[in-house]
């Protein structure tokens, strides 16, 4: 744009001054921590002594990667991520398809579906813990009433069901964003296509298959990427409900990083897991982007 005070091309300091606080902030609270984390993972840093910290190369990585625990954590994280992202996507799609119709009470339904957005993750965790409660929980009550179970299930205490139990509230929390994005995708499909299909005598299923699905494809790719990244790093709900337990059954990567650092004060192991976590999400994002995005979508 034209800047009246600088008719000749000189360095214009205004945009640089405006952006500087942001750059400092990103440097201090995002870049430095990542670099520092990487450095710590290559040393034998001890939180209690904090002297004689020495460079140990990839020692910590070898130690972490050769444990069976790593494999289990990876597997749990994958299950949790696919379950949460997949569930949130499917319900979001269904909700968006429903809301895209004209009907009485549409505004109320829309507000209901966006609702979990306003609920703090901590509250979500608490409320679901209550519903899952072994003694007083409403879920066990209903299942018993329907004769689906004979004895109450310890939803958060039994390692074989605990992961599913934390996936459900995680899905619940992601429904609003998923619905909103899919609704945006549905709005971007042009009305004429449906009119043309109706003239040609297509039924609802054909319309859905040949117009709606292809029309939603670009936005779906982005939404799934976002949902996967978010679920992969999800922390609050798991921490609130099980803190990684029982017997590590809900210990995903970020849980592992956090507990290793702040429960066991093993900062080198924690940062090693941290760097691995970052690398996994980075590699996944790049591969996903390269494989699924066509040239003009990038």
């Amino acid at each position, binding site marked *: 744009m*034209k*800047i*009246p005070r600088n008719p000749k091309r000189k360095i214009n300091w205004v*945009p640089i*001054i*405006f*952006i500087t606080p*942001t*750059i400092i*902030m*990103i440097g*201090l*609270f*995002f870049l*430095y*921590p*990542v670099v*520092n*984390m990487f450095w*710590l993972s290559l040393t034998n840093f001890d939180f209690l002594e904090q002297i004689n910290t020495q460079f140990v190369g990839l020692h910590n990585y070898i130690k972490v990667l050769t444990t069976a625990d790593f494999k289990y954590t990876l597997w749990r994280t994958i299950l949790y991520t696919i379950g949460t992202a997949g569930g949130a996507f499917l319900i979001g799609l*269904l909700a968006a398809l*429903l809301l895209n*119709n004209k*009907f009485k009470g549409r505004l109320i339904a829309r*507000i*209901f*579906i*966006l*609702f979990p*957005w*306003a*609920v*703090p*993750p*901590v*509250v979500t965790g*608490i*409320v679901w813990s*209550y*519903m899952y409660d072994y003694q*007083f929980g*409403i879920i066990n*009550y209903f299942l018993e*009433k329907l004769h689906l179970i004979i004895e109450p299930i310890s939803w958060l205490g039994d390692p074989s069901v605990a992961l599913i139990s934390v996936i459900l509230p995680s899905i*619940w929390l992601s429904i609003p964003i998923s619905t*909103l994005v899919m609704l*945006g995708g549905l709005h971007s499909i042009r009305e004429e296509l449906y009119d043309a299909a109706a003239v040609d005598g297509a039924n609802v299923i054909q319309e859905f298959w040949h117009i709606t699905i292809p029309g939603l494809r670009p936005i779906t790719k982005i939404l799934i990427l976002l949902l996967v990244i978010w679920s992969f*790093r999800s*922390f*609050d709900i798991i921490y*609130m409900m099980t803190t990684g337990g029982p017997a590590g059954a809900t210990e995903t990567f*970020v849980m592992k*990083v956090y507990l290793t650092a*702040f429960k066991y004060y093993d*900062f080198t192991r924690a940062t090693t897991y*941290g760097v691995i*976590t*970052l690398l996994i999400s*980075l590699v996944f*994002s790049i591969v996903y982007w390269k494989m699924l995005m066509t040239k003009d979508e990038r």
Partner: protein
Amino acid sequence: MMKNTKQSLRKIVFYIFLAIVCGMIVFPFYWMVATSLTKGSMYSYPPSIFPIDISIQSYISVFLERPMLRWIINTSIVSAVVIPATILIALPAAYSLSRFKYRGKGLVSQLILVTQMIPATLIIIPVFLIFSKLQLTNTLYSLMILDTAFAVPISIWISKGFFDTIPFIIEEAAFIDGCNHFGVLFRIDLPLILPGLVTVILLTFLTVWHEFVFAITLVQSEELRVVSIGLRYFKTQYFVPWNQLMAAAAIITIPIVIIFLGLEKMFVRGLTAGAVIE
């Protein structure tokens, strides 16, 4: 006749699906409120789906027996610093990215994007080590600083989308009248991007109110706790006071729900406008 039955069948199926989805979403919230309003419901089994014996006893006891008010005040103090700080940092940055061309601008935009990829649970480890050295742990300052850092990138995105929609001509008149960039930004542009600003304020407020990792790691003393972590300390090893917990959960959720519902239209518009232009 055939067509009519078919259509009403479709309608029924539609409403069944709608009821299932809405029910699934609303039920946990309903159950929270219902439990918090029922007298002594934590001992009752089977649970009554509709509150029979309504009382606000749990709400009163949360304030009397727990430092609920302290938590709300602490969270409000943090928000009162983080919201203006975020606006003061993010709006000029967004203005800079929207209005000027300079070297390194692309890199800065990418950096802002990359911050969204880094989980707070990882950031907290190095930050905890530094803050311990600076003796910033166990203070509300530590939360103010970190919450601001986490609210800025997304706020820049959203407000940049709005700046991009303002035509240059509007600003040019102000420059001729001798206004500087800061003046143009806050006097001319700000009223024009009001939905964007509301979105930024609301999102920042949510960031503070929902923030959990930093608060649970950095704050130890009881009088410094914020609402998001306060709930964690209701449980004892032998006993969970579900009524009180649900009342406390309702207290910290309902104000946000009300704000959210009031501004829902503006909020959704703000988010999508930013996204489309990005």
